[in-house]
């Protein structure tokens, strides 16, 4: 590969802490990694990028021992290693922190830090010593929390830091961060980056996997891009323009990542869906909402502002305890997902692992599920029809899977998301609620999903899209509702829909809240 030599030459071999050369990994029927090289230097933050299914996770798993590689060499600190499992990798010096914190929420912070190696006294756990050590350890991370508190009482960001502290304390040579920022807000990300910079200064080699390109440029020194299990190249971040990076990831020019399309002036037709005083105590304050045919209404707000709660109440996943819903002027009961689906509603939830996919069922069955549920159990969709549906959407949405009978849990996140979308599109919905449709998915799928949203809206579907990516929201929404503290605080229409205005509306609310 021509791209990867430049960066390597600038580093002496002494600086390399982890070197993977010619890594192969074969799964039945697919070659997941093909002779991939990856060099990690001491004191660098190295981004590992690629589309879903490019082989990032597989490479990381081969390095951490979660998978056994089928070929190639792993050299850590000058010595060949062959970790059989993640514990061995940890002992050797490679620690990993995942997006979903893999600690025990019902234990205290200190217990989590020292789990499996608690200081003992007379054969019993010496809690006082353990808490003292935990405090010392966390002091190094500028984290002043009660180490005796249960981990579940801490914010996700703090839990992440605890996980990092544990991993660094256990391993101390290489730290792999697998999408650590996916569920953090901007402030928390900054805090996390402070810690990453400090660890970097201590000489750790840090691998950073993320889908947020801004974050890559904010913190990474070098970037390695994989595509379809092959190394595309390793480059200095400072010398790699964003456009070029995206081209490397996609293997094609994309124009602009998100084309700021001229907002389709939604038909000024009559209002199809009218919610009046809709709300539920403890979830979302009563709100009014009108949606026209072919209109995209965006919902913006900070984490915890009531975005998901709005979606759930519209779909009947949570029952409204006040207000009324009208569809085409007729009152409609929306007290369960089934009732909403009868009115041709669809809902792609934010947390697709918990609320979306049925992991062990095949891609085909996952796509057919909502349609089958609406038809009722006595009228099964004939197998041939299911196959046709699945093939149609696998093709239309470019769902990457070896075949339609593969259990959906084996697909990467973005492809799972597309399959859930397919599940709803198969029901011919007229009102589709998308909660963070582009979260945690790669650039390519990102652009495809946005294109899809625009297409659906042109076909006359009404959409509610919740997203924390404001550029995106602005690109396709004709109206944006801004939420704060579980209430609808502002509505922007037409030309007023800009990122600045949305941020202003959220901030204005913040000020009000402070007063």
């Amino acid at each position, binding site marked *: 590969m021509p791209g990867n030599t430049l960066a390597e030459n600038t580093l002496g071999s002494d600086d390399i802490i982890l070197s993977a050369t010619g890594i192969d990994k*074969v*799964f*039945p*029927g*697919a*070659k997941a990694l*093909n002779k991939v090289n990856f060099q990690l230097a001491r004191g660098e933050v190295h981004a590992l990028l690629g589309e879903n299914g490019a082989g990032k996770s597989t490479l990381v798993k081969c390095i951490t021992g979660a998978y056994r590689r*089928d070929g190639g060499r792993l050299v850590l600190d000058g010595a060949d290693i062959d970790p059989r499992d993640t514990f061995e990798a940890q002992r050797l010096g490679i620690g990993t922190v995942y997006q979903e914190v893999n600690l025990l929420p019902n234990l205290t912070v200190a217990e989590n830090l020292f789990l499996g190696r608690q200081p003992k006294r007379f054969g019993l756990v010496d809690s006082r010593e353990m808490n003292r050590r935990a405090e010392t350890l966390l002091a190094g991370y500028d984290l002043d929390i009660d180490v005796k508190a249960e981990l579940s009482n801490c914010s996700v960001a703090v839990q992440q830091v605890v996980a990092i502290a544990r991993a660094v304390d256990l391993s101390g040579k290489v730290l792999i961060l697998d999408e650590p920022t996916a569920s953090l807000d901007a402030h928390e990300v900054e805090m996390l980056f402070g810690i990453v910079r400090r660890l970097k200064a201590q000489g750790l080699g840090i691998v950073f996997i993320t889908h947020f390109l801004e974050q890559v440029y904010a913190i990474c020194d070098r970037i390695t891009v994989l595509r379809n299990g092959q190394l595309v190249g390793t480059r200095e971040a400072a010398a790699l323009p964003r456009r070029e990076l995206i081209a490397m990831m996609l293997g094609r020019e994309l124009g602009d990542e998100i084309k700021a399309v001229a907002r389709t002036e939604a038909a000024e037709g009559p209002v199809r869906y009218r919610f009046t005083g809709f709300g539920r105590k403890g979830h979302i304050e009563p709100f009014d909402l009108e949606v026209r045919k072919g209109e995209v209404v965006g919902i913006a707000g900070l984490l915890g502002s009531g975005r998901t709660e709005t979606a759930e109440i519209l*779909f009947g*996943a949570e029952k409204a305890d006040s207000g009324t819903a009208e569809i085409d002027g007729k009152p409609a009961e929306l007290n369960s*997902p*089934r009732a909403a*689906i009868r009115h041709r509603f669809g*809902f792609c*939830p934010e947390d697709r692992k*918990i*609320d*979306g*996919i*049925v*992991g*062990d*069922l095949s891609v085909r*069955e996952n796509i*057919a*599920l*909502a349609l*089958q*549920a*609406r*038809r*009722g*159990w*006595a*009228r*099964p*969709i004939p197998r041939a029809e299911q196959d046709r549906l699945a093939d149609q959407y696998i093709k239309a949405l470019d769902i990457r899977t070896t075949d339609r009978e593969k259990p959906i849990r084996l697909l990467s996140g973005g492809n799972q998301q597309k399959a859930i979308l397919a*599940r709803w599109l198969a029901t011919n919905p007229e009102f589709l609620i998308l909660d963070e449709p582009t979260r945690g998915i790669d650039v390519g799928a990102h652009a495809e999903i946005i294109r899809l949203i625009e297409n659906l809206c042109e076909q006359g579907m009404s959409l509610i899209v919740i997203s924390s990516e404001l550029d995106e929201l602005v690109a396709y929404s004709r109206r944006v509702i801004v939420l704060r503290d579980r209430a609808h605080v502002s509505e922007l229409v037409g030309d007023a829909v800009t990122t600045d205005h949305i941020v202003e509306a959220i901030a204005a609310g913040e000020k009000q809240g402070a007063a």
Partner: protein
Amino acid sequence: MNALKPHLIRLAPQFAVLVAVVLLISLAFPDFLKLQIQNGRVYGSLVDVLNRGAPVALLAIGMTIVIATRGIDLSVGAVMAICGAVAAASITSGHSLVYTLALALSVGLLCGLWNGILVAVLDIQPIIATLVLMVAGRGIAQLITEGAILTFNDPGLIFIGSGSFLGLPMPVIIWVVFGIAVTLLVRRTALGMLVEALGINRRASTLSGVSTGVLLIAAYVLSGLCAAIAGIIAAADIRGADANNAGLWLELDAILAVVVGGNSLLGGRFSIAASLLGALIIQSINTGILLSGFPPEFNLIIKAAIIVLILVVQSPRIRDLATWFGRSDSAEAAVKQEAK
């Protein structure tokens, strides 16, 4: 038959174990495989296995569905006792056979409904919810029989336990027909897929519009119905209702049959046929041990040892090892594919 292939692959391990167990027994007792026809009826140890295995096989049908929903039904043994007692009480107080059967079956359905409501509506953990009826059920059965063994002489009811049809004992006919009927019901409709979806991810299924509550209740109702049929057969077999011993510990055998059938206790994918093979494996072991003439004290231990062996062979670790050994071919195939 291409459509059948995945099913045959799924059933292969259970089938192999069953054949192995039967062969082992017949090595020691060649008479085990012998079948003879007298008065138009087939006799032999194999028929005996099918016949004695009827209650567990019936329970396993309902248990498979309940376990597929990620639940468990501990009450089936007690429900057998209740329904046996109801049938005996009804027939001895002079009601017709049809009325008696209808009554006993409806009581089973009611018991299932009770379990289902506790689980689906009140959201109680299945193991606790059904423990209630497991404990209370035997008490209810004792109340019905007033503490005694309630015997009866009605030829119609007795026929269900010891009669024969097409040369086979009635219990065998009943469980085979019922097993096929339930399999067709869940596989020819969408019920099977919806139950699997519910068992794997209840929340995602609800959000997709699946009536998860109704399905859950239906699973427990089916289990109650299976227990009622098993209870009637058990009572008819001994011509009396024994509230203390009818169906005792059979819930555990039923769960074991489902597990030996390779169904996961974590719910999801299920196979009724595999559970039925599991029930037959357990019954063959029971019969084999009885034939062997070992002191009865050893029976349970031998049975446990054989079952541990079966579970070890089916365990994920061993399966992983098997795929690991089988892996090289597929890996090479993949590489070859790549080369093209």
